[in-house]
């Protein structure tokens, strides 16, 4: 009689697991469908295409960053999700529902604006209460929820102040509380840390990230600061000229850039141009002016086509003698200059092609070399990425 009992137990366990999963899932929104879907989004102003065929899926609870230089269409994309701009074509789905016909004031998303956009004539409390008041939430509930929201951003004592009596960081927090108090499905943040000084900015980055983790709300964050994007995001969508260049985790984006733009925009990188010669699995050999360099190619690289080999400065190594273990990536260069950056030393060398190449060295393992000296640059093959031009 043991086996049926165990079987029954198993069924019971499964059932309770399913129940817990379903209740938790429905409450926290852990559904399998993405929270936000952008489908072939296009935005044109006259003849100018600002956002060009952007498709992207953002999961529930994800911290996604739209990263790119100014004018790349990241803010326009965010504003289309918020409802302030209407796409020329394409569709936006929020939690499974198309929302393009929904006006901004009926979309269950909230925005933190770049300049905070606090209501100057209202106190901090009234600012945060605004969204609840227009939705006619009961007065007692408003007091409770605004109080909680202010506590969350550590501004309880500032409830009675006007925005112009607050510092930049405090205004920022009010803006976040004002948006989050409405329990949005998605929080949109348009360069919210852009106006803060460096130190406060770093601190707010961490705070925001923790807040997002704790609340489990989907964040879509717009920034042009690649370091900020790497620090905070679960995934980064890199945009350039209205086009989505690459979407991936910070590690993916940094270690395996798919385009030359991504490689150069995220961190610093050395790009050596050449022609793809042969392919061996994911490894591609590239002829760079006579020297054969190997690197990993994630996307398609047509043999015989112009490509770029990307190497991060901190992945490259300098030596006085050719390194036999370098696996073929050992190229001659000439020392040009050394730049002291504090935590590291940046050494610039000139390749035989005339292109300059940066290497980050640690201060305690410096090569003894001066201007004009002959050196060898090497890196492990897996640290070089081959990109389409």
């Amino acid at each position, binding site marked *: 009689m043991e086996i049926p009992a165990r079987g029954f137990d198993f069924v019971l366990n499964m059932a309770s697991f399913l129940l817990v999963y379903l209740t938790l899932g429905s409450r926290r929104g852990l559904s399998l469908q993405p929270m936000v879907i952008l489908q072939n989004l296009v935005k044109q102003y006259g003849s100018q295409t600002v956002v060009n065929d952007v498709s992207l899926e953002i999961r529930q609870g994800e911290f996604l960053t739209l990263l790119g230089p100014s004018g790349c269409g990241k803010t326009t994309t965010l504003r289309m999700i*918020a*409802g*302030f701009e209407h796409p020329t074509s394409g569709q936006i789905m929020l939690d499974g529902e198309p929302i393009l016909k929904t*006006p*901004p*004031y*009926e979309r269950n*998303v*909230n*925005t933190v*604006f*770049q*300049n905070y*956009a*606090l*209501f*100057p*004539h209202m106190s901090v409390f009234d600012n945060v209460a*605004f*969204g609840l008041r*227009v*939705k006619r939430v009961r007065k007692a509930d408003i007091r409770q929820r605004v109080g909680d929201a202010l506590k969350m951003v550590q501004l309880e004592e500032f409830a009675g102040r006007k925005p112009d009596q607050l510092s930049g960081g405090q205004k920022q927090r009010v803006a976040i509380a*004002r*948006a989050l108090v*409405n329990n949005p499905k998605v929080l949109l943040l348009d360069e919210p840390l852009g106006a803060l000084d460096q130190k406060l900015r770093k601190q707010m980055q961490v705070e925001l990230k923790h807040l997002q983790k704790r609340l489990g709300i989907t964040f879509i964050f717009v920034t042009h600061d690649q370091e900020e994007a790497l620090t905070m995001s679960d995934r980064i969508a890199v945009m350039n000229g209205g086009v989505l260049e690459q979407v991936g985790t910070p590690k993916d984006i940094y270690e395996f850039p798919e385009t030359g733009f991504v490689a150069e925009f995220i961190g610093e990188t050395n790009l050596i141009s050449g022609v793809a010669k042969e392919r061996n699995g994911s490894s591609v050999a590239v002829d760079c002016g006579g020297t054969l360099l190997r690197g990993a190619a994630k996307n398609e690289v047509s043999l015989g086509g112009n490509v770029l080999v990307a190497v991060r400065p901190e992945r490259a190594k300098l030596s006085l003698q050719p390194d036999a273990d370098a696996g073929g990536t050992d190229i001659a260069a000439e020392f040009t200059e050394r730049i002291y950056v504090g935590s590291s030393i940046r050494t610039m060398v000139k390749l035989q092609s005339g292109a300059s190449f940066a290497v980050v060295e640690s201060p305690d393992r410096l090569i003894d070399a001066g201007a004009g000296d002959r050196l060898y640059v090497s890196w492990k093959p897996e640290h070089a990425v081959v990109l389409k031009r």
Partner: protein
Amino acid sequence: MRLSFGRKFGVFYASLVYLFLYLPISILILYSFNRSKLNAVWTGFTTDWYVRLFHNDSILEAAKTSLTVAVITTIGATMIGTLAAVGMYRYHFRGKIALEGLVFLPIVIPEIVMGISMLALFSQLKVSLGIMTLLAAHITFSVPFVMVVVRARLAGFDKNIEEAAMDLGAKPWTTFLKVTLPVIAPGVIAGALLTFTLSIDDVVISFFVAGPGSTTLPLKIYSMVKFGVTPEINALSTLMLLATLLIVLFAERLQQKEK
């Protein structure tokens, strides 16, 4: 301490300026309390002229007309001017600059030209002159002033706060009432007060468009002066001066509060 010639001359010059500014008004106020019917010799203090003023039906009638016109003009012109300024600020369209220029042009058009042209228009349309034509004219010449004042206030307006309001669930009209209007309120109030003072003391345009039953206070004074300036007119002018000063003081208080 001896003053240099330059300093002495400066004091003398400044005194002259203030004398010219305030002497006539002081005389006017003084003679409104003069017992004599002539504005020439002081014969003793009296408040009779004020009492008589409040028993003069035709003056009271004119005052009533003036106040009615001023209040309705203030409300109408402030509403039209504010909405127009907000609209002009918010939307971009072809020919916007030209249209803005055309709205502000009436400020510099000579009043007499405005008056005559309105009279011509009304007679063309066969509209009989009366309180309605008076209102139409007053609202028309006041709107550009409201627009100028409100527009100045909008220059420092952060458009994002309107988007923030909508983002938080406020419909466009709620956004206007709860966010836009309170922020530009000092400009709107200043525009309203300006309109009130413009309307209540307008002579030239009113002269052309007022009908027999719609004489305003300034028109009444103007017609009374034809038979000589009486202390009664002095009293009336003093009261108007007082009312205007109160309005300006009120406006100033509002501005102070804002800061």
